């Protein structure tokens, strides 16, 4: 699951302008059978997010919003059961969930004559049944379930995956009899930056001392890794010394270049752990 930069680039190349749907993912899986689905999904998701970030503004001009809303209305008038909103999103290469949000927001504004609050929208997106218009509710729901990169469903899944991996890591630490402080304990003590786990007694992994472990249930590409380095990993190093980052879905090999400096990357829980011998004497 650790990819070279070249391997990664090859995958990323295939993802340009591919809608975030199950079908796309299936194709990707066929194209790269040796990679795990989770890794591909993670890469896909990241690449797609980059694409969305680049194009976000053009979908949010008032002209664009008006045009999307109009096309939606026209569509459902023709056939309320057709996937109007989803097809619209795919057509303009925008995330279905985000397209649903745009249209919902516009709809509520028209109905209430005031811009709706964020919480109301979020709430309706989480539970489309709250949406007063039944047709819109169905359309929104269809978008959300078909979007594998954005939307409350995806957020929830991501959160769950993150949590699962933290629990997994915790179990592994307990199994290895390594004692640690977790994020909550650290926050309670007043630490200003908190990795997932701080080892109370440091260990060595592949010859490198580590004091803390951060679990990342994603693929480590350049973009996300640099952001993490700046916001998290170096800050941890500045306070607790060298540590280990586990990218459960793999990472670009070339990014693991700070080992000597004190940031070690792994794609799984390390097997080569040396602990402080308790019976040295």
């Amino acid at each position, binding site marked *: 699951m650790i990819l070279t930069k070249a391997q990664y680039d090859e995958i990323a190349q295939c993802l340009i302008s591919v809608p975030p749907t199950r079908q796309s993912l299936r194709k990707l899986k066929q194209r790269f059978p040796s990679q795990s689905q989770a890794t591909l999904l993670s890469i896909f998701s990241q690449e797609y997010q980059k694409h969305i970030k680049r194009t976000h503004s053009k979908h949010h001009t008032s002209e664009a919003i008006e045009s999307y809303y109009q096309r939606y209305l026209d569509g459902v008038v023709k056939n309320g059961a057709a996937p109007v909103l989803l097809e619209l999103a795919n057509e303009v290469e925008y995330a279905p969930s985000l397209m649903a949000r745009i249209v919902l927001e516009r709809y509520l504004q028209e109905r209430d004559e005031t811009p709706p609050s964020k919480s109301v929208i979020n709430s309706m997106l989480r539970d489309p049944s709250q949406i007063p218009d039944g047709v819109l509710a169905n359309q929104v729901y269809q978008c959300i379930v078909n979007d594998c990169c954005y939307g409350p469903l995806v957020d929830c899944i991501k959160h769950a995956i993150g949590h699962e991996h933290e629990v997994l890591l915790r179990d592994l630490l307990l199994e290895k009899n390594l004692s640690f402080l977790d994020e909550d304990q650290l926050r309670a003590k007043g630490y200003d930056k908190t990795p997932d786990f701080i080892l109370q007694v440091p260990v060595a992994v592949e010859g490198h001392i580590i004091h803390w472990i951060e679990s990342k249930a994603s693929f480590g590409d350049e973009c996300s890794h640099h952001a993490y380095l700046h916001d998290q990993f170096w800050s941890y190093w500045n306070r607790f010394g060298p540590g280990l980052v586990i990218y459960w879905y793999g990472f670009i090999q070339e990014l693991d270049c700070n080992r000597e400096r004190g940031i070690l990357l792994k794609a799984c829980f390390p097997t080569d752990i040396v602990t402080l011998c*308790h019976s040295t*004497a």
Partner: protein
Amino acid sequence: MSAVLESLLREEVSVVAAVRWVARFGVKAPPARPGATTLSRCPGRPRGAGSPGRALSDPNLEEFPSRRLGAPPGPQGEKQPAAGRSRLKEGVVFGDRNVRKPVATLSRTKPSRRINPTPVSEERSLSKPKTCFTSPPISCVPSSQPSALDTSPWGLGLPPGCRSLQEERAMLRKERSKQLQQSPTPTCPTPELGPLIPSRTGSLAAEAADPARVSSRKRLEVVALVYSSCIAENLVPNLFLELFFVLQLLTVRRMVAAKDSDLEPSQDSLESPLFQSIHDCVFFAVQVLEHQFQVLSYLDKGTLKLLAENERLMCFSPALQGRLRAAYEGSVAKVSPTMTPSAQAVSFQPETDNRANFSSDRAFHTFKKQRDVFYEVLREWEDRHEEPGWDFEKGLGSRIRAMMSQLSAACSHSHFVRLFQKQLLQMCQSPGGAASSVLGEAPDVLNMLGADKLGRLRRLQERLAAPPSSGGPCPPPTFPGCQGFFKDFILSASSFQFNQHLMDSLSLKIQELNGLPLPQHEPGDEDGESDVDWQGERRQFAAVLLSLRLLAKFLGFVAFLPYRGPEPPPSRELQDSIVALRSQVPPVLDVRALLQQGLQAHRAVLTVPWLVEFLSFADHIVPLLDYYRSVFTVLLRLYRSLVLSQEGEGEMCFLNKLLLLAVLGWLFQIPTVPEDFFFLEECQVDAFEVDTAASEHGLDSVPVVDQQLLYTCCPYIGELRKLLASWVSGSSGRSGGFVRKITPTTTTSLGAQLPPSSQGLQAQLAQAFFHNQPPSLRRTVEFVAERIGSNCVKHIKATLVADLVRQAESLLQEYRVAQGQEGGDPAQLLEILCSQLCPSGAHALAQGREFCQRKSPGAVRALLPEETPAAVLSSAESIAVGLATEKACAWLSANITALIRREVKAAVSRTLRAQGPEPAARGERRGCSRACEHHAPLPSHLISEIKISPCSLQDVLSLAVGPRDPDEGVSPEHLEQLLGQLRQTLRCRQFLCPPAEQHLAKCSVELASLLVADQIPILAAPHRLERGQARRLLLMLLSLWKEDFQGPIPLQLLLSPRNVGLLADTRWGLWDLLLFLLRELVEKGLMDRMEIETCLGSLHETPWPGDFPEELATLSRLFLAELHLPEPQLRACELVQPSRGTVLAQS
């Protein structure tokens, strides 16, 4: 020469004047005044700051800037340049009776400084040009003098370093070509100067030096003696500078000949230059080195090796070479460069760093960001500061200032300063980082390659056109390695608030460390185990000292930063007004008080080195201020008082002194210290009493400094080695040296970090463990390990070693019984015992390990908070066990054999002194009975004291042996009484010492022999003891021997030829008593049969008169026969000896 000295004395020239004359070797004046012997001093160390261009404009200085060894009389002299004439004006005229006050003249003369060569190297391209000019007296490589001086104090706003590098190179080329034009013969670049000038440059081949061709040997010897005395008495400002000069003379390559080199130097005339040839230079150098042997012997092993291998030295003084070689072989002073570990961050400690320590959420989060920016900046510096063209200010300046501007609240400043200071200490002072970062240079390549390969390196070296040395023997203060980051950070931040907080924090930490009660070695404790504590103390001292020096250096830097300028104030008036202004500014830290306290508490060895670091950053005005002037004066007095040859009780240890001399000598060469300070300040050394009378044991008299620390603090001492190494590299290939031991050359320490071994990894893990724990945890674990380790050694000594000593004593006893009373050669005995016992020392390690394992965890547990998590606790325990074991086992494995040996040796000599094995060897020594009131006759009385009546054993013996008066004698009752007293004495052990008991035992055996031979003179007629009485007395003696004596009894004496001879003498033939005694001895188990047989057998070897041998043979046969027949001994006796039987019947 002696005439000169006489005249010097007559002219009341102080020794200082003499030494300065000697040290600078006057240039003879032009013959304008024939007859007058004029010695002008040349400005040996030109004040570079004042005349930056001189070094280049005056090519003479290129070759030989500081010490000129003769001036040309004749036409050359008349053409002397203006610089030379001004020198003459300053010069001292010796031997001229008209000059009455040469001292004053000298005092006015400014002692000149040496020029600091600016090494043309990449390393220098990053550091700023030095504003300080001190350097080797003879420049090593042509033309590497400083080109242009930067006028800004710390090189702020300088162009990037690479530019100056290019400039330097360009100038170098220009200078070379200029030289070539000036002197058609490259070997003779200085035609204006004296006839012959030592040069350390030029072609590969060095001129050979020949002891036979030394001119005016006598004169050189005297000058060398005076010069050496001045060095020994600390009358020179810098000991190592003089040594450096002497070594330069030793390694002079050739004399550069002037045009009129055919000048005939007249012997012993002051008109001739002191050094007329290379032979003179080398001869003088070797003479001085002989006088300075003691100092040399304390240098590091590498320097000693190079010195001992120097073929010139070998040629001129084989004796000195031999001593150096011996010193080299005995030296353990290996100074090793260590690698700096990569930076580690200061850990976040909730106690001091969490939200509760900040005034607001904003301040807390601001500081959070600042911490990250600080390390980001540090990481970038680590990555890029060695890149050519990278500039600190350009690269990081704005980011640093942006960060500093966010530190609004005072509280945030103190947080940041704490982080800054901790990071400074962590990066620049860690034991691993100390050496290399202080040295501030790549590991010494010359050193690593070894002398043999140096020849090859030389060509490369020439192409690089830079001397291998970094800054000469007196480099200016610099910020090597990581220190550079912190210096540049302070400069770029240019924040008044930050500087103030930093000074506060540094001052506090300095006072804290300076006052640290460093555990003192207990002088009374001469036992070996204190070594364990010593090593720990030495390490601790080194750590504290290096921290203090680092902090003081930065304090000095920041404190004097606003006042620093490249030059002193131009005019006197301006200077006075500045002094008036500055005088009212209180010192940033009361260093004067700290210095005085340090001296009083005999802790100069701790205080002075950091104080020197602090003062080395003083600006030009500082030494003029009353406060600091008094500090300098005290330091000068201290310097003068540290005479190395004075050793004794309460004196400072040699290496401690050497460290202080080195750092103070260095300080006196700093340009901001007034040049004439050393000579003007004619302080009264007598008045400086505080240090000489050591009433108590202070740190000064504890050997806390070793060579590693000395060379770490004073890397410039390593210049001596480099100088010698460069000689080897230049001299021809025959410089194999005597030391043939080949050490494999590895380059591992030059390369990247090797993957850590599992052992190394464990050590790293242990280190890392403490990183995020509160500091108290580490202190606790280290304390426990240190104490348990020390206790472990004590315990082993009290148990294992004591047991071994007891074994040794009983072995010795056995051995002596087997060998007879005479035993053997004590040394041989010791060897035998040690060879048997020392292998048992191996148990010490196992026992030590067990002890540490048993004792450490409990101690750690007792000292750590109850709430410590279990995993942390158990790791802390195991680290404590490991450290304690390591400490104890390291000491034990190195010393246990020696310890056992020493203890056994002490036991053996104790035993031998007591003339026999300890009674303890025969079993438990019994004391008096419980009821004993110690009223028994004193042993001494029994032996000999009482003379009034013959009642002591000695008296009886002497009476018996004679000669005696006819009326002298003893009564049988008296004898019985005497034996009774003896019994009492033996039963009361209160006053009995082993020698007395042994003496009594011996006397009692003698008495028995006399009884057997019937030799006791009895007062009453028939003047002989009755047979029954004799037997009774013998039985008493037997009982004493059996019951009361606890030491060995020399019973074999009974059958010594002398005592048996008594029987022969009397011809009385009382064989029955002897037989009786022997039988009883065997019966009581006092002697065994074999022993008696052996003794009887050996009696046959003695030539006896008449038929005595036959009687002896009969006795032997009877004795042997009786043993097989238990009962009828008496009968047998009587049967065999009918004639004597009649005697018996008669009595």
